């Protein structure tokens, strides 16, 4: 009996020892295979995808935002009824039936995209179809709510959310953030077991960027440029507005614009930010700088006179003429040379300054080298190396034989406007984290003093005279405010054959407002206008409209006022102008097309007509049509142009 007990005890002992040994083998001794198995069973890797940061304007208005979208994919192997699925999806997603059906027929492929970046409503509709073999993947989608506004500067992102052009490309790393991976233990249902909840709630989103751009001003500038293109049958137009004290870029426009939400619909030429990437021969807008150089070198005074050779000036075997062949100027003061935009006068001043000093002066103003902006690629323009021939020096004096970017030119004018300081153009004001923490704020940077304050003031006065009644910049003026600026009409270089293109010009205007205390520096250029081509006819009026908008928006106090501008407080300034609408007296249906609802009622005044009004806006059609006999119930159905 005892021995049996001992055997039983020994058997159990061995069993237990075996279990303990197995336990130690499993739990204590290192075993890579088991560790991997355990990891697979108990651990979960959670990937927190970052959301791309918002780009906003100076007032916080969102210009680029990222939202979650849903991309539909299919596993053709699992799709049970491809024909039916293709029919339903093609009508819902607005894609060709054949395209979807072909994708679903290829059973060898286990993953095909049907359509990417759908919104939530569409996702719900597709889910309601209860399709087998289809599913969604969440993807970020970049949306540009203002569509066309600032498109060339903002750029756009690709399907995978990577910045491809403009600020989106240049600040890709900052905006996109970093993907965060958390290794967590999971429970039986696969839910992550959180040790530190904060790890999960702190998303690795990209940083936000606030620009110095004002979206409303940007829109206005883009619209005016487009009007100029339409009016003068031009190829394109561009414009820049800079705050003269801080160097902040308030607007940077390239027209025609494109919709950043659909960048592939447009050519790369339209998508290019020409303000920074293209360089042009600036034409007469550069004359300001030969006068500045001469003032700085104490060679001239505003009333120093130069003989302008009655319109023809021979230098060696070449002849310099005025831009307008009707101009045969004799003696002109320096102010008049600027005001009348005399090529010969400028050439003569340049010869007095000398090539070396003038080149150095242009270099100081930032021409011929990159500004080195931290927000995109830029061209440096062309400023030829010394020695310069007399002819080249004369040409450069009136803006030929040199090429500059619009940004370089507007910053050079900014230096004159602010009293002599060359500033770095500021586009990005702030980079910050929405949840607090990281923040970089950019402040105005003074590069160097390029003019003394008195020289800058003198130049401002001379540029004001360039917008006087008989001067070239007269159409740039705005009522109530003094304007300073200079027109430019440059022949376009023929890049294929060399020399200049026949009949192709760049009409431009650079100036600032109000001239007495400059606030905004504006540069407008219209490329290849075909109907009129002088800067005074094409670019200056655009400047005037934009400047007028800016002073109103800023609420600046007018300086040049007359008695007409002073209003009597009792005067009603809101008198409405009523359009005269002839009364209708006939028996047939009246012609109401194009009238507003108010005008319709006025026209039908006194008649018992039952109106059935649909939509809003102006009348687009009526039933019965105009001239047809009225129905017995005297009822007219009016369809207005804007449907609810």
């Amino acid at each position, binding site marked *: 009996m005892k021995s049996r007990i001992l055997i039983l005890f020994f058997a159990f002992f061995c069993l237990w020892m075996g279990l303990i040994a197995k336990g130690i083998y499993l739990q204590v001794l290192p075993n890579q295979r088991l560790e991997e198995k355990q990891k697979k069973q108990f651990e979960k890797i959670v990937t927190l995808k970052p959301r791309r940061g918002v780009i906003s304007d100076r007032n916080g208005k969102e210009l680029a935002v990222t939202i979650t979208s849903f991309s539909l994919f299919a596993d053709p192997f699992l799709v049970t009824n491809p024909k039916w699925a293709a029919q339903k999806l093609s009508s819902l997603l607005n894609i060709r039936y054949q395209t979807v059906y072909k994708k679903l027929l290829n059973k060898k492929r286990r993953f095909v995209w049907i359509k990417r970046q759908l919104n939530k409503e569409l996702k719900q509709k597709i889910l309601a179809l209860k399709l087998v073999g289809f599913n969604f993947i969440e993807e970020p989608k970049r949306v540009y*709510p203002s569509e066309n506004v600032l498109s060339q500067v903002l750029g756009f992102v690709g399907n995978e959310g990577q910045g491809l052009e403009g600020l989106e490309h240049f600040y890709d790393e900052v905006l996109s953030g970093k993907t965060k991976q958390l290794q967590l233990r999971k429970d039986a249902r696969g839910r992550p077991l959180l040790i530190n909840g904060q790890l999960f709630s702190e998303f690795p989103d990209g940083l936000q960027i606030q620009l110095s751009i004002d979206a409303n001003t940007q829109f206005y500038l883009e619209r005016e440029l487009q009007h100029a293109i339409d009016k003068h049958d031009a190829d394109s137009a561009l414009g820049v507005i800079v705050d003269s004290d801080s160097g902040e870029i308030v607007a940077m426009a390239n027209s025609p614009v494109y919709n950043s939400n659909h960048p592939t619909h447009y050519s790369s030429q339209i998508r290019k930010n020409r303000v920074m990437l293209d360089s042009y021969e600036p034409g007469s807008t550069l004359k300001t700088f030969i006068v500045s150089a001469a003032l700085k070198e104490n060679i001239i005074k505003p009333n120093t006179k130069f003989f302008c050779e009655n319109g023809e000036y021979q230098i060696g075997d070449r002849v310099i003429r005025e831009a307008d062949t009707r101009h045969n100027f004799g003696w002109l003061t320096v102010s008049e040379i600027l005001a009348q935009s005399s090529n010969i006068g400028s050439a003569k001043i340049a010869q007095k300054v000398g090539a070396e000093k003038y080149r150095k002066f242009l270099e100081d103003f930032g021409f011929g080298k990159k500004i080195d902006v931290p927000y995109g690629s830029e061209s440096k323009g062309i400023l030829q190396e010394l020695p310069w021939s007399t002819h080249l020096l004369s040409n450069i004096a009136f803006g030929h034989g040199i090429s500059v970017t619009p940004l370089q030119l507007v910053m050079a004018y900014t230096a004159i406007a602010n009293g002599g300081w060359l500033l770095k153009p500021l586009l990005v004001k702030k980079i910050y984290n929405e949840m607090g923490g990281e923040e970089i704020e950019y402040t105005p940077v003074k590069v160097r003093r390029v003019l003394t304050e008195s020289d800058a003031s003198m130049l401002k006065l001379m540029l004001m005279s360039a917008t006087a009644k008989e001067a070239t910049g007269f159409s740039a003026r705005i009522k109530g405010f003094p304007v300073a600026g200079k027109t430019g009409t440059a022949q376009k270089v023929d890049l294929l054959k060399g020399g200049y293109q026949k009949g192709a010009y760049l009409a431009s205007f650079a100036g600032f407002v109000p001239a007495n205390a400059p606030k905004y520096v504006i540069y407008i250029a219209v490329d290849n206008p075909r109907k009129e081509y002088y800067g005074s006819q094409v670019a200056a009026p655009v400047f005037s409209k934009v400047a007028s908008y800016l002073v109103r928006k800023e609420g600046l106090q007018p300086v040049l006022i007359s008695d007409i501008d002073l209003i009597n407080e009792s005067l009603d300034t809101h008198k409405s102008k009523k359009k005269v609408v002839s009364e209708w007296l006939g028996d047939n249906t009246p012609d109401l097309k194009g009238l507003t609802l108010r005008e319709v009622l006025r026209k039908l005044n006194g008649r018992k007509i039952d109106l059935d009004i649909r939509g809003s806006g102006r009348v687009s059609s009526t039933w019965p049509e105009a001239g047809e006999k009225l129905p017995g119930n005297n009822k007219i159905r009016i369809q207005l142009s804007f449907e609810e």
Partner: protein
Amino acid sequence: MKNRLNELKPIISVFFIICTLFFLVFSKMEARRMGYSVLKQSRELRRLQDNYRLKIIEYAKLTSPEHLRRIAVSKFTLSEAEVGQIIHMSGKQIAVKQ
């Protein structure tokens, strides 16, 4: 009395040990429960952020200058101001026609 206390000591000790174990288990369960709650809340936060962004986009689209211009011209039958129609009101009794 002292003897009685000595007799109770093991029971009290076991009681304390059991209480501590209960407390540990309860704390662990509570931590886990809160973990699930944080997970749920963080998902809700993400959802609300998404909704917020959608609203931002909607608002930005509605207030975009081009949209406002389109509505003003087509729906309210306004026409764009021309030169001479714009009046710059500034300061006291000054109104300059632009």
